[in-house]
């Protein structure tokens, strides 16, 4: 599907840099921080944020991977048949968990992610980071850290590609076909 590229690799890099600064600023450093990437493309984003924090602060922030399919409320609408393990290298109890996803849209994925984290333990707090916030929320959920706000129409699709998953870094807007 050909799309209109709206963000290139350099802009993604700058957005991620700004996000990691904001995460550290809000939390006064990286102590007690855990990044939880929502599969699939929240994971490479979380790993990039962790890498930047490691380079800047010399602190290893643990990165978990959440598969939220078992927590979705829209099995009835969009059956997702492949489930992958949820991994969390540390106990989330008493920590600040930053839930990381590529696109924030209806908020339903984040809602499922909140439930998935709650089943792993009781964190001190949960924050939400998304590379793209495209609006059209259906739940009272907002992002704490946003790479870029992109106004969209509901007819459109936002496609984020990362080098790790797709071989290229960019963000495009596609028309729903």
């Amino acid at each position, binding site marked *: 599907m050909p799309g209109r590229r709206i963000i290139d690799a350099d802009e993604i890099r700058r957005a991620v840099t700004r996000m990691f600064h904001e995460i550290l600023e809000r939390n006064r450093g990286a102590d007690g921080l855990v990044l939880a990437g929502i599969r*699939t493309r929240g*994971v*490479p984003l979380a790993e990039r944020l962790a890498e930047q924090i490691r380079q800047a602060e010399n602190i290893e922030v643990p990165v*978990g*991977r959440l*598969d939220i*399919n*078992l*927590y*979705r409320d829209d*099995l*009835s*609408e969009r*059956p*997702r*048949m*492949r*489930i*992958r*393990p*949820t*991994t*969390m*290298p*540390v*106990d*989330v*109890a008493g920590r600040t968990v930053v839930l990381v996803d590529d696109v924030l849209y209806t908020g339903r994925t984040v809602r499922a992610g909140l*439930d998935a984290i709650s*089943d*792993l*333990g009781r964190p001190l707090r949960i924050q939400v980071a998304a590379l793209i916030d495209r609006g059209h929320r259906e739940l009272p959920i907002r992002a704490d850290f946003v790479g870029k706000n992109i106004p969209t129409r509901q007819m459109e699709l936002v496609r984020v590609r990362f080098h*790790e*998953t797709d071989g290229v870094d960019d963000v495009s807007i596609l028309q729903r076909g």
Partner: protein
Amino acid sequence: MVATTSNEPEVFPGNAAQVPVLRRHVLDLDDFTAEEITATLDNAAAMRAVLERDVKKVPALRGRVIVTLFYEASTRTRISFEEAGKILSADVINMTASASSIEKGESLLNTGLTLQAMGVDVIVVRHPHSGAPHFLARNLNNVAVINAGDGAHAHPTQGLLDLYTARDHLGELAGRKVVIVGDVLHSRVARSAVWGFAKAGSHVVLSGPPTLMPDPVAPGGWGSAGNNGVENPLANVTVDTNLDTAIEGADLVMALRLQSERQQRGFFPSLREYIRRWQVNDARMAHANPDALLMHPGPMNEGIEVSSSQAHGDRSLIEEQVTNGVAIRMALLYQLAGAAVAEN
């Protein structure tokens, strides 16, 4: 709580891994493709991680109703399905033939229609007659049917949990030597395991008393070339009634439950002879591969088909099979629910 401590490098699937697994019923493994088997085992691995948590509950199947309809005694399979359904937040109702209108003579079809009319989403059925689950599946339009064992025909969820357990320890199953020992002729567990391992590319060797082996030359049967030249996935299945030679170089040995009534019906002379020639014991396992594994579907006659030392030895995966059975059934229940939605 730590969900898992493994931090293996992440492999990102391409779009191919997102191809949905869509089937309405699970009746046998003969109509599963190798890809669908792999996908189901992968999903089961994710379910296994849920089983290892403190909070063993996810909301995936909230509001769905599963009935276990058992016309034969069973503990592990029925409880395994019940636990799988409950962990996924489905409502599970257990129905046994002895405490229901089945005792008053209600037919299988009418029982099925009644359950369908009550809005049941999945019927898990075990029946002494081969083909009973297929019959239900053909006659019910709005219910998914899972075969939990039908006569001497098939036990697909057992076959899948055997494959899962084997893959978990052996990795690649293609080219592995799998020896299935015992009453293969009457065993639905063996039939499903044979289909599964054959499709995974393993070399399956059947062993046991000659009277309890399937006929290798029956048309379209075990190890034959198949009908009308169609490639038979069972072509790589062989029979060797001498367990001492059959077990040479085996990567996996699966012992089957021996039902004592088979002896009364003359299939083998005595339990003593069976034990002497076909029991999986230390001396025989010494001829398998050094790291060969032992499986048994249960319930086990310890000291008959397997020696106590092997049943509880380092190579035994018998208890792991039970745990993995819950994960496999969770994966199948989840996949059937998704398929039902996709269809409507």
